[in-house]
């Protein structure tokens, strides 16, 4: 009665738990898309700063990937550099560096980013802090002069606009398009926003984080500090931080309410540091500090489960 064909196939059938179909999404695809989204910013950096920018980007990227591979070899675990996450870290770090930074410093920073920022915690998914920002924090602490010396690209700006005596003298149009001094990826807001919009469109970042971050900065700088909200939004590394670093999945809350809190917290810290602190820029520490609060934010922003009713409700 039963066909021989079917019988002979019996042992070959796979039995595994459902769901038996899966979405096509993968970690490497997400990370690759982040790299894609960083392309406009990367190209703008190379356009404005030339070969020095190119060298920094290449050095940081290769070092990050190599460090990840080396660490995983040493730990005796599978090498997963194909997931592009190390490349994202290397690229992001490079975009936070001043164009004149010696290459060897960038390499050191990239090693630190992956080794101390990521691998010592257990690798991808287990780190508390944004690895690229860990690398940058290390460089800033170790080589403060080199990390705050910016090349001039146009006569109206003498340094990063946030360090200028009279910030309003810098044309907002230049800030927007990128014709100002600063770190590689800090110069053109339009390039960053382009990449950010792409990630938003693909659903790889949650709009709540940049909205909370940028919105808070805009509101607060309307009342405190010099330059006004538009200047503060466009200057320095805020745009890059808001779209590419504060949105890092691994180091931000998983709840929606938590993401609002995270973004707003970053915004408050940024304004405090920029306006009242001794540092010209606050993106780095605002995000790193908020990274520390992620577990507790997640814990206290647990969404209301379906059917969960208040005892007296």
């Amino acid at each position, binding site marked *: 009665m039963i066909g021989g064909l*079917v019988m002979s196939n*019996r042992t070959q059938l796979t039995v*595994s*738990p*459902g769901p038996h179909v899966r979405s096509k*999404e993968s970690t490497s695809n997400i990370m690759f898309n982040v790299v894609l989204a960083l392309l406009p910013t990367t190209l703008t950096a190379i356009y404005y700063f030339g070969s020095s920018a190119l060298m920094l980007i290449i050095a940081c990227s290769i070092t990050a990937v190599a460090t990840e591979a080396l660490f995983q070899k040493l730990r005796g675990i599978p090498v*997963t550099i194909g997931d592009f996450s190390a490349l994202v870290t290397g690229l992001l770090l490079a975009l936070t560096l001043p164009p004149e930074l010696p290459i060897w410093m960038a390499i050191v920073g990239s090693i630190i980013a992956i080794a101390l920022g990521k691998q010592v915690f257990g690798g*991808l998914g287990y780190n508390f802090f944004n690895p690229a920002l860990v690398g940058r924090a290390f460089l800033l602490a170790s080589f403060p002069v080199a990390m705050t010396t910016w090349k001039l690209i146009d006569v109206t700006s003498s340094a990063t606009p946030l360090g200028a005596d009279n910030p309003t003298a810098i044309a907002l149009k230049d800030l927007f398009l990128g014709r100002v001094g600063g770190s590689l990826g800090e110069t053109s807001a339009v390039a960053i926003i382009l990449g950010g919009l792409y990630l938003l469109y693909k659903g790889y970042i949650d709009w709540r984080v940049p909205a909370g971050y940028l919105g808070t900065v805009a509101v607060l700088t309307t009342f405190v500090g010099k330059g006004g909200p538009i200047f503060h939004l466009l200057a320095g590394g805020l745009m890059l931080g808001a779209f590419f670093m504060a949105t890092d999945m691994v180091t931000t809350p998983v709840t929606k309410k938590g993401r609002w809190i995270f973004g707003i917290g970053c915004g408050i810290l940024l304004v405090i540091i920029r306006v009242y602190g001794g540092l010209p820029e606050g993106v780095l520490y605002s995000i790193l500090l908020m990274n520390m609060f992620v577990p507790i934010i997640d814990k206290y922003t647990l969404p209301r489960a*379906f059917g969960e009713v208040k005892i007296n409700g």
Partner: protein
Amino acid sequence: MKRLKARTFEQGIHPRYNKELTAGKAFKLASQPEEVIIPLQQHIGAPAKPLVKKGDIVNLGQKIGQATGFVSADIHASVSGEVLAVEKVNGSLSVKIKNDFEDRQDESIKAKGDLKDLSAEELKDIVKEAGIVGMGGATFPTHVKVSIPEGKNVDKVILNGAECEPYLTVDHRTMVEQAEKVIYGLQALMKMVDAKEGYIGVEVNKPDAIKSMQQAIKAEDKISVVPLEVKYPQGGEKQLIKAILDQEVPSGGLPLDVGVVVNNIGTAVAITDAIQVGMPLVERTVTVTGAVKNPQNLIFRIGTPLSQLIEESGGFIGTPGKVILGGPMMGQAQSNLDLPATKGTSGILVLSKDELGAYPEAGPCIRCARCVDACPAKLLPTALVNLTKADMNLKLQDYHVLDCIECGSCTYVCPANIEILQWVKLGKENLQAELRKSE
């Protein structure tokens, strides 16, 4: 009471539906097998007790298994013929019957009379005697579902025509081809639980079914057809109630707690047959689909071997990788195709070896929160996995692990290929074990 805008619940996922393979194909009668294997447990609850022995001659529709206990269901012969054996098949006590192809009906089979003359109690009895169970795949005995406990009040019956599982089209075809039977069954259900309102929820990817149902309820003022958004798991009981009535079944509760009973489209038709013809549940509908040469919707006798239904659909295309009973989201993979299709077999889905690909290796969670955004129960699946791995079982309670409806949306969306649902199921078991210990 008619709503036109598609309604839905919050969150959920959009898998590829693949229903076009069979959605336009009318039901065909599957040929009867030489031999049926009828398990005495095809339902949730206690297995039925066999009423026949080897050598007995049985009639079509004859009761061959008696329900034991409250949550259990009767079992009937799906063909006439000789009992070859009453023995365990794949661990489940089953009755094997050699088909004599005479379809000699049992004398118990007769029309039960007019719906308006039958009392609620009589109707429940008919359902119980017909061995009817939830035919969406859960196979919960229907007579138990409509036995409303003291103190509970039901005023609404919802028929689940969402059919949100990809590939499956039996409910769709039933609504198109047997709309009157569906309505009749719904009216019987409403009478059983003394409900004032009836609803039929249908996803809007089945416009012909919606039209056919709307046509059938023209003269009914108590019944509405509610178009639903196309989204998985729209057919989950709680999601369906949320979509149609905008009410949430409380955590740990049942639809009864909001005055609702939910039944499947196929169940309604089985009830109609039990009343109008007197035929117990001896056949059902199935979508045989995926990597088979002729995907189709079949009506088969309970106990027909899976292999026969697959061959009837033209056999495999290429090398089969998986055969799934039910849909691809919540169905069970089966390796032994000699086993019978039963009351719960709403789909036989073949995935070829090629489309299965390599079994995905799980990577680390990157906290992307796709599972959080997908979960229809609004849980934090990623946190549930971590707590389960850390053996923090009581903590799982704070994260409402027991509210998981096991729809698998989390696993579906996970870019790291983590078997989230498996971890969550383990966490549920661990928590329940812990709770029992502390009692």
